[in-house]
């Protein structure tokens, strides 16, 4: 019988941050994820901005958490060993009308506690970003860029290192609160359960998944696009939501040379931003998103109409938006909480109703969810610890907790001397698998044996940047799948691209077993 103190449903950036913060305490934490890796949903399907917090309503969770998350991020990035650049952001304008709209944001941002915002003239703007268009700009020095996939992986790996467990390919299908008296005898005599010292008022949740059943004292719903569905299983009323879908182009690093700072056009009268160009920490450029409504939870397909429009809009603002720089497209959806009457966009919904004890339900954690993930996670952690104390259970700190994640410098980012040294120490560094991004066998091997036990091809890709360059795996994919088979000792037909049924091969073309 498997029993945990906390079951976290969903291994997006918020779920992984919650698991990581909980792992500071001596709690048995299990993260259930329906996909085969972390951050396969909207956590990674966004621009990767570390938001400053100047757009959100004063006093809102979005405003408070993004300011808090933003201020601490240099330290977080260093601890977790993830690439992060505090690039600042330019919101550029041409007209007086633009200026008025920008000034509204400036005032709002200052009220929210965003430091250092200032209006700058064209000259200073061009010093910061030679390729920005516009007559003036608002400069927000605290904005930054990060790779939300790397960040989520880092949170997950650090949680894992500190004792949290992850179970992938596990879709939650049912959650039942089982009263103390109804708990199976075998469960109550379980060592782990006895250690919980449950009082007779304390119940457990029985969570069924396609991969079996577990019990947990606490349930945290961080299911992202499916948060309302999981919330319903817990007994929460759904929060009215609208899906804002947006699509992106990823441009070649050759285009990346033309942009260092995210440049946003002046907001429209309704406060919304249109398509913009953002550099990534790896040196690519993202152009997007556009937006339109969707009702389908995982509607991540790119639409031709949308791509065409994005190309036209993107070109106006980023003149180097040329077809020859296209590398890839993706799409994401912001599931935004709304007032169904007024259609007004509402704040993150974070509920921990006393009537549904020992649950936390997070709904509508859209932008700035990446920036806000740790502030949210800390609050949930203190809420859980606080409630436990109220019930007479002291939650002890995990004395072995290590906030740091071991970082390995990428081969591609080493100096020639460092490269020579790395190869000397480990010859696998001398074998380059990915010619576009210069990813070595050493790095692929480390990714194959990643702490979370993710074994998909996209898992390797997201951990190493192999298959992410110009040729999208044309050179390295065959080498990586070969190594995956060898290292994992699996048959070709057992390899997976990204998802459960995403097979890569039907099998061997020729085999020693004779055909009939």
């Amino acid at each position, binding site marked *: 019988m498997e029993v945990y103190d906390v079951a976290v449903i969903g291994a997006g950036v918020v779920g992984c941050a919650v698991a990581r913060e909980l792992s500071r305490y001596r709690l048995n934490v299990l993260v259930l994820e329906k996909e085969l890796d972390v951050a396969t949903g909207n956590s990674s399907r966004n621009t990767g901005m570390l938001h400053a917090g100047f757009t959100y309503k004063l006093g809102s969770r979005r405003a408070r958490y993004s300011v808090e998350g933003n201020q601490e991020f240099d330290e977080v990035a260093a601890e977790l060993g993830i690439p992060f650049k505090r690039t600042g952001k330019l919101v550029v304008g041409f007209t007086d009308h633009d200026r008025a709209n920008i000034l509204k944001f400036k005032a709002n941002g200052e009220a929210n506690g965003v430091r250092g915002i200032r209006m700058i003239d064209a000259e200073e703007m061009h010093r910061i970003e030679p390729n920005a268009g516009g007559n003036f700009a608002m400069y927000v020095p605290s904005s930054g860029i990060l790779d939300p996939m790397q960040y989520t992986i880092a949170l997950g790996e650090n949680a894992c290192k500190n004792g949290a467990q992850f179970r992938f390919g596990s879709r939650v299908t049912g959650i039942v609160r089982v009263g103390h008296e109804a708990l199976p005898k075998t469960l109550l005599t379980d060592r782990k359960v006895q250690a919980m010292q449950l009082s007779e008022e304390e119940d457990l949740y029985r969570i069924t998944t396609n991969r079996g059943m577990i019990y947990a004292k606490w349930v945290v719903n961080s299911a992202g696009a499916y948060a309302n569905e999981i919330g319903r299983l817990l007994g929460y009323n759904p929060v009215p939501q609208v899906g804002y879908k947006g699509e992106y182009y990823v441009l070649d690093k050759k285009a990346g040379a033309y942009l260092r700072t995210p440049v946003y056009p002046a907001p429209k009268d309704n406060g919304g931003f249109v398509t913009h160009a953002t550099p990534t920490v790896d040196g690519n450029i993202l152009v997007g998103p556009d937006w339109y409504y969707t009702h389908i939870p995982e509607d991540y397909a790119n639409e031709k109409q949308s*791509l065409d429009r994005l190309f036209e809009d993107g070109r106006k603002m980023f003149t180097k938006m040329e077809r020859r720089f296209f590398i890839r497209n993706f799409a994401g959806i912001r599931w935004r909480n709304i007032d169904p009457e007024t259609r007004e966009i509402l704040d993150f919904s974070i509920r921990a109703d006393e009537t549904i004890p020992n649950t936390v339900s997070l709904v509508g954690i859209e932008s700035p969810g990446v920036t806000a993930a740790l502030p949210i996670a800390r609050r949930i952690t203190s809420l859980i610890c606080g409630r436990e104390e109220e019930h007479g259970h002291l939650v002890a700190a995990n004395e072995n907790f290590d906030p740091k994640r071991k970082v390995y410098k990428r081969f591609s980012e080493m100096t020639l001397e460092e490269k020579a040294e790395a190869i000397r120490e480990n010859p696998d560094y001398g074998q*380059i698998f990915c010619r576009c991004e210069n990813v070595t066998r050493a790095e692929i091997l480390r990714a194959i044996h990643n702490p979370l036990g993710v074994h998909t091809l996209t898992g390797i890709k997201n951990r190493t940047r192999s298959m992410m360059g110009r040729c999208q795996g044309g050179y390295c994919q065959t080498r990586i799948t070969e190594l995956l088979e060898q290292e994992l000792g699996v048959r070709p037909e057992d390899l997976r691209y990204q998802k459960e049924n995403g097979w*890569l091969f039907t099998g061997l073309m020729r085999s020693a077993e004779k055909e009939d």
Partner: protein
Amino acid sequence: MGMGQDNLNKVNQVMEASVVIVGGGPAGLAAAVRLYDRGVTDLLILERENKLGGILKQCIHDGFGLTRFGESLSGPEYADRFIQEVKQRNIRFITDTTVIQITPDHDVYAAHRDGLLHVRARAVILAMGCRERTRGALAIPGTRPAGVLTAGVAQAYMNLQNRMPGKKIVILGSGDIGLIMARRLTLEGAHVLGVFEINPIPSGLPRNIQQCLNDYGIPLFLSHTVTDIRGTDRLQEVVVSKVDEKLQPLAGTEKVYACDTLILSVGLIPENELTIGAGAELCPQTGGAYVDEWYQTTVPGLFAAGNVLHVHDLVDFVSLEAETMAEGVVRYLNGALPNASIALRCGKNIGHTVPQKISGTENVVVTLRVRAPQKDAEIVIRQGKAMVARKRVRNALPANMIEIHLLKDQLTGGQDLEVSVND
């Protein structure tokens, strides 16, 4: 002679070579053999894979070598001709070695399991070949399931790794590799539903249309493209639409094909990251470096030939081009390379030319492609008002490389040239 362990253990010392050749595929091998035969014996070929031969290793079909050797060979056999020549001459090569940096002063750095190599060369030859254009480069709409791969990757899986990539196949693009893979997959029991080509004419060779598609009853749909990709885990279906003259999909012509694999054969792009790093300027039309008639890039002593320079139709032409380049390298080493200052500009219906600059002191074979198909095309090179070369082509197609001879005696001075197609 492959390089032994002993030598490689000294990698932290600087090695020297007259010429470093980056890439041991058809271009690199042909250049090496020719250089050696011209007396430049102090050569070093750096090859990133574990065997010489480049992409030819996976091209197991026959049809190579008719121009260069006068007989029809498979890819591995064609490569082996040159590999044997290299080995007979004891030309140095190191495999499993990826060049990571080339400086404008001809310092070459390469990664190998035994250490980081640093070779100081008098001249460097770029022979890295090309890459396939991908789905992302075309921005094909739809989901991103497993089962969408380029023809070359499918070919490597089947021919080198014994892996079967799928059973029910749609092929986008009628490039030669796509056609070859249509046949290969069919022979291995897969069902190829069709080959779809956005242009009104196929981009592969007519003989491949015949022997890879027609022979097996595989339909070819011209003026069609894939407009949607469906399936979350593995590819489930693709939507194909007819396109108009501007290559835009026509609403209402969508047809759904249930399949598990989409193979892309939609073009090749020269691979030039190292070239840029070395400071050479690229020609936006070819995707390769700007070169003169001896295939020298804008960086003195840095040469390029083969698919790294511009994508060729046939490997035979790659070998021949590399051999001509080798002659230029010899001259460079002897300090006798003439200065090329006459530019070739692309006029009417000319997509690009190679070279883009000439000295005017030599007869030159100019390679070019037309932009649009033209029947009975007269290709002309003009210098000012004077016509200095011309060639009639029965059926000029963008898919076919065209050669035109430019004789130095026809030139009337140092004025730039314009290449165009007469109506």
